[in-house]
């Protein structure tokens, strides 16, 4: 299976403090890669490097290579706006914009594409269907996105992310604020979405990582201690630290 993303000797610094150390991680195309590890180990930071969203903050820098289809996206000449269209992000807390359901999804379309009203509507419908939300919101497209339930809001954010037709979706604990039913819907959706997108998901839920991901990377103190197929990691991890973490001995 070809690699979509690959971290090579990736380091990351908050000011003078280094938080990622020589990380190497191959991420296969159209697979779900779970990123696990105790709080503060660098999982979310790793995700934030993938679409350079860290650059929105001062005194943060990445070194090394983060290859997307073989191109190092950390190079200054890379168009960051295009990168973020191509590498979408979903956060822990649903972040719908304070506008209608329709406008939430149409927003990236207006930003990145020049489409007619008809084309925009079709693409919004397509994205909402892709996020398994269409049937629930088709009669209230003009309602505020903030009026939806937590699970629906998160799926709205997924619809907004996939409307821009990215190739990679980064999800940072996308279900930690949701109840089990809403979580289950998002998980089903993720498995559906991997047919079209490469997904990296940070999760603290070991069962979730085991259920939905194809590959797992275990981070500890800014280092990728072990990565491999999820089956291998969750039945017979090679590293003692990985075993201790996933069996709840620490973290």
């Amino acid at each position, binding site marked *: 299976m070809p690699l979509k993303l690959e971290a090579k000797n990736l380091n990351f610094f908050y000011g003078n403090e280094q938080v990622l150390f020589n990380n190497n991680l191959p991420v296969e195309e159209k697979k779900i890669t779970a990123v696990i590890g105790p709080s503060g180990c660098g999982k979310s930071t790793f995700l934030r490097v993938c679409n350079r969203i860290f650059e929105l903050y001062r005194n943060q820098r990445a070194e090394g290579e983060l290859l997307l289809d073989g191109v190092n996206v950390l190079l200054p000449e890379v168009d960051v706006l295009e990168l973020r269209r191509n590498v979408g992000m979903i956060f822990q807390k649903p972040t719908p914009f304070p506008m209608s359901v329709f406008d939430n999804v149409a927003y990236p379309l207006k930003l990145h594409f020049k489409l007619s009203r008809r084309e925009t509507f079709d693409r919004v419908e397509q994205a909402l269907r892709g996020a398994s939300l269409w049937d629930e919101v088709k009669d209230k497209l003009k309602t505020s996105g903030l009026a939806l339930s937590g699970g629906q809001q998160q799926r709205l954010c997924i619809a907004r992310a996939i409307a821009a037709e990215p190739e990679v979706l980064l999800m940072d604990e996308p279900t930690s604020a949701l109840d089990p039913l809403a979580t289950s819907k998002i998980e089903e959706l993720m498995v559906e979405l991997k047919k079209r997108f490469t997904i990296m998901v940070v999760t603290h839920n*070991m*069962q979730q990582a*085991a259920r939905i991901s194809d590959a797992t990377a275990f981070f500890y103190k800014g280092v990728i201690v072990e990565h491999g197929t999820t089956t291998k*990691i*969750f*039945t*017979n*991890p090679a590293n003692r630290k*990985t*075993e201790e973490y*996933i*069996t*709840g*001995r620490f973290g």
Partner: protein
Amino acid sequence: MTVHFINEIENLTLLLLEVTSKVEHAVQQAIQATFSHDVPLAQKIIDADDEIDATEILIEEECLKILALYQPVAGDLRKVITILKVNNEIERVGDLAVNIAERVFDMVSYGENMVEKLDFEEMTGKACGMLKKSLDSLTYRDTAIAAEVISLDDEVDKLHHDAYLFVREKMLQHPNQSGYYLDCLTISRCLERIADIATNISEDVIYMEQGIIVRHLHEGGTK
């Protein structure tokens, strides 16, 4: 939560070891009963099997409870799965002890002197030795002992084959005593199965400790 899980597993392991020692004892007594044609002892073994069956159910229910409540992974998962599998194997050894004991009722009808007896001593020693070692490997989580047990299985298979040849010969020589010899063959078969089960338990222990499935790997895919 982890502390609770560890306690639950420890209790479960103790329960399993308790029942394995009962089963081990039952096999030895069953063989003893066939040597001495001791009907009351045979009956005692048969009656005691209900308790073994009940413990098997109890251990299985506890394993299912642990899987549902703790959803263990990695080494913890392998441990619960191994207990579940070994529990089932142990219960089958209990059944084999009963099968051996049941032969005693038929064997006594042939009296003490009229038949050339099949000597089970070596086979019993080896099969029970394998069972004991496999349980030791589980208790001490010792894969070296487990590997040793697996390597011993051929010897018991050969003894069972020898018993088959002996029985066939004697049945041709003494057709009127064929029932007795068939009893002997059944006992030999039970001992051979006990050795197989000891091998299975040892394979499970290797899986539990190393995460490697070694079943069907030795001897070109046959046991």
